[in-house]
């Protein structure tokens, strides 16, 4: 028994090939947004500008890592019959914590994100990773999986938000990037980008490009 544990430990270094793959895989080849098409709701809603998108990314990644680790620690004790509701309790607790912390330390941001912080609870990525990965893996790989998926989600959100804010408002992180000279010769901001359809269009284009490049398709 102890030998088996020892060899297993040797086979699972902190940043071995497998661990790196756990992080890298969801960033590109198996991106939760573009390939699994999860978490779309929030990806559309809070990407009109960079700042809320970034705070959402950080919040989701934190919740995802936290929930994956907690579920993974409990995985041998959670009764199978009630595993979904236990995951939900853990996730909701973490999300409410994040919400309370934002209200105390980043009040304006919590107002901008409003219901979407609460909706992290129902973000399919969180429950999906808990069920698919954390229930069957040790805490450290689960943490990496959470980090990877959180970052994978973040990359797409940042791309969409960058496109929407620059095209729709001419700014990036609230700083004017489209020069006044362009407006003077008749350029104007594209209001459509700030509305939900703008996000659909951009997200569609991103999914198309990403799938073409990575060569991965659904059957």
């Amino acid at each position, binding site marked *: 028994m102890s030998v088996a544990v020892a060899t297993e430990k040797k086979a699972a270094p902190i940043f071995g090939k497998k661990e790196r793959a756990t992080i890298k895989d969801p960033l590109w080849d198996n991106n939760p947004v573009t390939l699994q098409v999860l978490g779309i709701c929030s990806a559309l*809603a809070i990407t009109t500008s960079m700042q809320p998108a970034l705070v959402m990314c950080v919040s989701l990644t934190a919740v995802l890592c936290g929930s994956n680790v907690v579920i993974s620690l409990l995985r041998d*004790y959670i009764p*199978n019959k*009630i595993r979904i509701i236990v995951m939900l309790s*853990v996730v909701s*607790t973490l999300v*409410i*914590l994040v919400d309370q912390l934002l209200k105390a330390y980043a*009040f304006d941001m919590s107002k901008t994100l409003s219901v*979407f912080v609460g909706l992290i609870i129902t973000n399919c990525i969180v429950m999906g990773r808990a069920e698919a990965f954390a229930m069957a893996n040790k805490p450290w790989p689960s943490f990496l999986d959470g980090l990877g998926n959180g970052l994978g989600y973040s990359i797409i959100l940042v791309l969409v938000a960058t496109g929407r804010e620059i095209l729709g408002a001419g700014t990036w992180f609230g700083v004017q990037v489209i020069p006044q000279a362009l407006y003077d010769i008749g350029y104007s901001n594209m209001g459509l980008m700030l509305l939900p359809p703008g996000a659909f269009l951009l997200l569609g284009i991103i999914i198309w490009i990403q799938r073409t490049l990575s060569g991965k398709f659904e059957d």
Partner: protein
Amino acid sequence: MERKGDLYTFGFAGIICVFCSVILALAATGLKPLQDQNAELDVLVNILGAVGHDPAALKKEGAVAVKEQFAKEFQTKLLNASNQETSLDFMKTELIKVGYPEDMIDNLLPGTLLTRFEAKKGLMARKAGKKMDEYDPGYKMVYVHLEDGQPDAYVIPVMGFGLWDIVKGYLALGTDLNTVKGVTFYEHKETPGLGARVTEQWFQANWKGKKTLSDGGELVSITVAKGDAASGVHQVDGISGATLTGNGINKFVKADLMRYEPYFKTLRGN
């Protein structure tokens, strides 16, 4: 341990519930003072915003500076049902009766005091052995903006249902008590990207210069409208996809203006 037994399942569920509750209760009570401070600061920033200050710049200055600026620029008036200016004492004693600590009450801003009072009104009426409509003193707040010691705008709270929940805001009227000097909407639970855009600068800027009274001096309020209709003096341009939020705003802005109209009439008379 046996993981399949019902007893184990119940036990596990119980432990998880208790554990999660304790963590959340600790976080909620621990962070409450900070959150309350933020909410109070937000109110002041929005009252200042209604008369044309930049909310973002104010927030950067910090709580102390904002409180000072507010105290310097505004005179807070509490009005009773017959529109007479009245003191805060009644609210204070009533709040202490239902268990608020005295030193805490003294530190509350008048606006916050009224909010707390309104929230506990039902309980207080029961304690005093009165029916709600007998008990309700019908208090309302007016924030008078002073410029060189002279009133230059009157800011009133406007509040009511949007689409999903209560929307709160402040409306500033010029000294004619007819022309809008500015408006802010801040607390809401409207749909992000649609109704939530009431907080955006362009929407609020539309309100400036609009009139609440008809040429004959009758109250007609201001409504959120679509397209060409929005060019009138009583209409502001609406938000695409947020018609129902707009309808809510139309309703509660008018209701609040009507509540203050008797008081405004006396002011106009002078």
